[in-house]
């Protein structure tokens, strides 16, 4: 037992200030989230008139009451610099429990633009499919989509979206069930969600699937068809055979879906870990422990103490490369290795982190990266000390560590520091961001300064004077370009993570993810490989 002794005083002014600022950002996050919810729910009357549930009501009906929910990419597609921008990408996706089984659910947010597909929505769907496959989680599509939005057509969306159906095939073949509930239209590409599913539940009267809806059909071939006749659930369940189960309404369909999942006798993979201790320091204090201003230093152990069971952890090499914090702890009963930053990554710190990652991998201990990193150390001493080698070694270790890796973006994330600390490009099981986080290849000031130095050198080479006014304007543009993209609301909107969370939820998110990974890695599935079946 090595219980951490906190130096943070929750009654202090700095704590209060930090907390106030952090909670303001959390409130902003909730406000952004609520935009999509409100827009979608504004269609409530229309939905209820048709006997339909709203997309979020569908999810609530599908999930076990009281069981936890992790929303994926809640901010996807949001742009804070665009007036009235909505988050979510027209898709709601959550990881939750259906009949006691952890599943990932992807629902068209058909309260917005009739569920038309968007580019962020496409990427979000692909990410959810990756999560399903990697964690061997059944995936359930709640389909109601007008298909591609013809007015905002983008050729790459059409091309890249093919991946969603490729993934469905791969998930299914890997032995992980793919289910579709057809609540409304699945048109054109949307028809392949059901088409590529293992089982399909269709809602009578509302559910429809066709490669070309009546308008396109008329335009393409001149054939005139009634939508119900062309692709209604009635037809698909009796004639085409596409639909396996017919439901009378949305609620009925979700009941059938719950039953279908209950009957999967799905291998839990691992027993839930119980009987762990709460942290000695309340995770609620996370909002006050971390300053919103990334330039203010703090001890990352204060964060770990509010994530780890019993606030109890063993500090690895505390006096060697002290700017890099490596500790062994556990979170909600799962042993983990935490890697966090008390400064930049230097040679010693990189080596220490590499050593720690390799040791955790040897033991099969999952890794948790708490990113608050301004990058790897630069300069003559650093280069002479082998910074490239040492940084690369760390990136090597991170990339090839085959234990579940989780990343929380809790502050700064700049340069290659993002890579070494298991950024989004390094396939963490889950990467989630706090609303205060900032990221980029470098800060705007550094970029502008760099450009100034380069320009001054060029001018000196040519023997020309530096146009100070132009230089100032140029530097201003550079700063704006970088800083406008630093905010977590931008990076999360651009889908550089799996979602934005309230910092106070960090322990729960980690506990949820660790259990998801442990179950998935230990679950016995039955990948399918069949011979040729003639029809």
């Amino acid at each position, binding site marked *: 037992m090595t219980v951490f002794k906190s130096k943070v005083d929750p009654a202090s002014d700095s704590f209060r200030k930090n907390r106030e600022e952090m909670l303001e950002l959390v409130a902003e996050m909730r406000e952004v989230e609520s935009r999509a919810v409100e827009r979608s729910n504004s269609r409530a009357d229309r939905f209820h008139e048709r006997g339909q549930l709203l997309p979020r009501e569908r999810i609530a009906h599908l999930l076990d009451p009281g069981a936890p929910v992790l929303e994926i990419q809640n901010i996807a597609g949001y742009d804070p610099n665009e007036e009235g921008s909505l988050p979510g990408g027209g898709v709601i996706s959550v990881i939750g429990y259906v009949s006691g089984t952890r599943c990932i659910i992807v629902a068209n947010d058909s309260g917005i633009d009739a569920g038309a597909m968007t580019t962020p929505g496409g990427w979000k769907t692909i990410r959810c499919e990756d999560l399903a496959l990697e964690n061997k989680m059944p995936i359930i599509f709640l389909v109601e989509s007008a298909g591609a939005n013809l007015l905002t057509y983008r050729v790459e969306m059409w091309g890249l979206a093919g991946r969603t159906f490729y993934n469905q095939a791969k998930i299914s073949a890997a032995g992980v069930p793919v289910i579709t509930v057809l609540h409304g239209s699945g048109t054109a590409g949307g028809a392949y969600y059901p088409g590529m599913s293992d089982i399909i539940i269709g809602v009578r009267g509302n559910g429809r699937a066709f490669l070309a809806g009546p308008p396109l059909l008329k335009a393409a071939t001149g054939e005139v068809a009634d939508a119900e006749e062309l692709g209604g659930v009635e037809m698909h369940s009796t004639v085409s055979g596409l639909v396996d189960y017919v439901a009378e309404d949305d609620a009925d369909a979700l009941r059938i879906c719950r039953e279908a999942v209950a009957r999967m006798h799905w291998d839990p993979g691992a027993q839930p870990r119980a009987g762990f201790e709460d942290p000695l320091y309340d995770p609620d204090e996370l909002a006050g422990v971390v300053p919103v201003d990334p330039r203010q230093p703090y001890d990352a152990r204060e964060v770990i103490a509010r994530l780890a069971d019993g606030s109890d952890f063993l500090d690895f090499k505390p006096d060697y490369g002290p700017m890099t914090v490596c500790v062994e702890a556990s979170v909600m009963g799962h042993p983990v290795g935490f890697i966090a930053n008390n400064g930049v990554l230097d040679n010693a710190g990189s080596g220490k982190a590499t050593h720690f990652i390799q040791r955790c991998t040897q033991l099969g201990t999952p890794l948790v990266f708490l990113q608050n990193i301004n990058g790897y150390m630069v300069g003559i001493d650093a280069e002479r000390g082998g910074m490239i080698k040492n940084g690369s070694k760390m990136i090597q270790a991170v990339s090839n560590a085959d234990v579940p890796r989780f990343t929380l973006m809790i502050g700064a994330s700049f340069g290659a520091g993002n890579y070494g600390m298991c950024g989004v490009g390094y396939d963490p099981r889950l990467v989630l961001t706090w609303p205060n986080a900032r990221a980029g290849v470098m800060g705007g000031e550094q970029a502008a300064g760099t450009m100034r130095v380069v320009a001054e050198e060029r001018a000196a080479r040519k023997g020309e004077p530096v146009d100070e006014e132009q230089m100032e304007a140029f530097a201003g543009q550079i700063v704006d370009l970088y800083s406008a993209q630093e905010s977590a609301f931008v990076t999360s909107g651009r889908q550089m993570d799996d979602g934005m969370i309230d910092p106070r939820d960090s322990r*729960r998110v980690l506990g949820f993810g660790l259990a998801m990974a442990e179950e998935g890695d230990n679950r016995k599935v039955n990948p399918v490989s069949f011979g040729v079946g003639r029809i």
Partner: protein
Amino acid sequence: MAGSFDTVLVANRGEIACRVIRSAREMGLRTVAVYSEADADAPHVAAADLAVEIGPAPAADSYLVGEKIIEAAKKTGAGAIHPGYGFLSENADFARACADSGIVFVGPSPEAIAAMGDKAAAKRLMEKSGVPTVPGYSGEEQDDALLVQKAKEVGFPLMVKAAAGGGGKGMRLVEDEASLPSAIESARREAAGAFGDDTLLLERAVVAPRHVEIQVLADRAGHTIHLGERDCSVQRRHQKVIEEAPSPAVGEELRAKMGAAGVAAAEAVGYEGAGTIEFLLDADGNFYFLEMNTRLQVEHPVTELVTGMDLVEWQLRIAAGEPLTVVQDDVEINGHAIEARLYAEDPENDYLPATGTVELWETPELGALRVDTGIRTGSEITPFYDPMVAKVIAWGSDRDQARSLLIRGLEETSALGTITNRPLLTAILRAPLFAEGGATTAFLDELPESPAPTSADMAAVIGWLYRERLCEAASVAPGLEGWSSGGALTSAMRVAVAGEEHEVRIVDHGGTLSVTVGDAEHRVLLDAPAPVVDDVEIPVRCIEPSRGRVLAAFPGFDLEMVDLTALPPGAGDAGGEGVLLAPMHGKVIAVEATAGERVTTGQRLVVMEAMKMEHEILADIDGVIEEIVSEGSQVGGDQLLARIAAA
């Protein structure tokens, strides 16, 4: 006491056995209980000093077998047998057999029992003794044509009754001549089944009368007094539900008249012990002899509460040969008492008797409130015996005080695990007509409205069910129950109350829930000891939910709520159309269709006897019988009786 016995065997079960044992023990007597296999764990067994098992569950094989009871008395040295009510209490042969075995039968002589047991003869005797009787026919000739002829003479509406009967069995109200033959037929069958004697009598029905009865006490020397009247007008299917003393319709003068008639009736048969003469009282103050119950009555406590006399104690004293030391002038009626009979039955469903395990039995301790009960938490309510499980009795200095206390007492009583008439009882007591004292025997022809659960009540119970879901969530995701990364977790639940399904939305704010039922949203505090809804504590008691089912006792009603979202797949499937299930445990006494036969909706297919009542099972669709039970089979609740293929 200076008695001839020191041990008394109580040949009964349930509340009355407990009641008799209580007084006997207080008098210093040793007590012996008898019990059937179904009653091994019953409270009366625990209450007695000794207990003897007397056979299988059906009463005909245990509580009604006189030899076994006399043998038990001999084995345990019981010098007296108290029969309670029902069972062998009015069986002259049994009383005689006791005497033959040298055991004191706590009750009147076999001759007095026999004289009053034959309803027709009793009526003739009363006419002779100057006790007013209802016009009717009680001759021995019983052929249908004669009965029809006599019925016309008596006039309609009239009652067809089993001559040997009582307690409403074999009794039919006939409105007109046309329905007479079928009433005669069914009354005969029921009389033969219940009493082994199918003799019927006819009697002019007094419309909307009051049922008022006189309690008498007589000692061996023939000293007879009356203890005033009880008004038992509130009845369902001729079974009493609410009784009170004194009657709101009886004043000093009428009491004296009726009391004198009661005493005359008792003296006419040389009565000894406690007995009751039942009268019909019409709106004009005319009263007619109905019958005499030669035993302790279910409703005796109301008399005890207003006279201060312990009737069981007096029964035992008189049986021991002691003289009655109270004279008529000593009897004073003090205040008012009302008794409510708690039945395990469903008033909304034609009083269908209910069975089940009593999952919670709690009664309040409230001053002058008395509860006579034969159940406790964990008791099994079986289909073998009378569905009355307890009596709640309140005394007040006036009628309104007694009524208020009784309402309170019933509202604070929890009887969960089976269906009871508790909601009906409180609704009756609150009904304006009853409150005014104006209830006649027609009162329950229309049920007073019982309170229904409000959405706030529902929300309180939903809170409990949700808490169970949270526990389940905690078992798959410890420490994460009730949490969503998106803010407050929203859950949808579907619950069923009394067969009706409700969609429910719950938003979990951690400790506080927003519960939306229909259009109403309520704030429910989850961790409070009693649920708090919209800042108001809801006075409800419940048993912890298990597997998605919760039982809750509200003041005015009980509520069973089932969380359908918690049920395993397929568990919600009810018997479909054309699938007829036994409404309860019972015996098939008639099967009126055969497999392959074409039947129509409403056609009677099966007659079951359960809880001493007949239940008709009717075809619910037109079709062809695929499967049907055979006559005489014993079936369990929900067992398939018949399956009809739709046609």
